[in-house]
């Protein structure tokens, strides 16, 4: 089947039966009976959330700094990354967990 034939077939649904004669009038009449709702106040929630998220991150970072978790270890391993530091601690011979 060619595109041309398909297009001709589809074109036959281009015209649709018109809606009821008073279609628009019915809509306007229905609108007459209802009042507009006032615009909802601007939602502050996303902005507050962003501030809260930022504040949480800052507090967490400050907590880490204060606890000394990001400080250089004194054990001599020279591992500065705090994650690696924990791993190193686990494998420590004296006092390590493993």
């Amino acid at each position: 089947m060619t595109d041309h034939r398909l297009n001709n077939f589809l074109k036959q649904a281009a015209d649709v039966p018109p809606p009821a004669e008073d279609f628009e009038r019915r809509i306007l009449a229905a609108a007459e009976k209802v009042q507009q709702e006032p615009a909802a106040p601007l939602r502050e929630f996303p902005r507050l959330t962003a501030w809260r998220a930022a504040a949480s991150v800052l507090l967490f970072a400050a907590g880490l700094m204060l606890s000394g978790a990001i400080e250089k270890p004194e054990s001599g391993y020279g591992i500065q990354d705090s994650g690696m530091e924990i791993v190193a601690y686990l494998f420590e011979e004296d006092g390590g967990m493993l």
Partner: protein
Amino acid sequence: MRRKTPNNSGKENSPDETGRVAYFPSAKNSPSDRKPTDEELAARTAEGDRAAYAEIVRRHARKFYAFAFRYLANQQEAEDIVQTALLKFWQRPHLWDASRGARFSTWFYQIILNACRDALRTRGKIVPLFEDGTVAESDHDTPEEALIRKDVLHYLQRLPERQHQAVLLCFYEGMTHSEAAAVMGTTQKSVELLVRRAKSALKEMMEEDSEKHRRKGGGHDGSQAE
């Protein structure tokens, strides 16, 4: 001087005929006498301007109805959906956010499309068009025209949902791929692909049906209907 705005059917809105035109007067044009854009009318509707709202209804109600009808193949459902959507827009015009930069008609097509999709899902996949005459035939149609239209809409409804939507928007609403993409919330490339696939699927369906009818030795053949 107040100008009467012709509606889609080409008839003038007569105050005597409706009795409501005083309440919904035709929207006044701007000082430069140009027609207000849909976006301007929507903004004025948000300020409670009933005339602006009436103008939107006159401009678009039939266009959206035609789209809904082709989607659902049901006159009553199409009318109800458009009426409900336009009424909701009157109640909550602030839902349209001009600052997003979308055209009003694009936004409203999205609303109608979603409503039609929900209606189709609620009532079941495909209306049995040929069994119970669900597609209303109007006085304006000959029985043959109505039957052929049912046939076309029936084929379209058998397409996957997104392909169905893409064909309706691009083929019948005359939208470009990028406009259809904005309504469907996808990319232009995606719409191009959907239309191409829809055309292939339609051809395949029609050839299959044609073959079946040929084997049976007659009956209604969609591919023959031109």
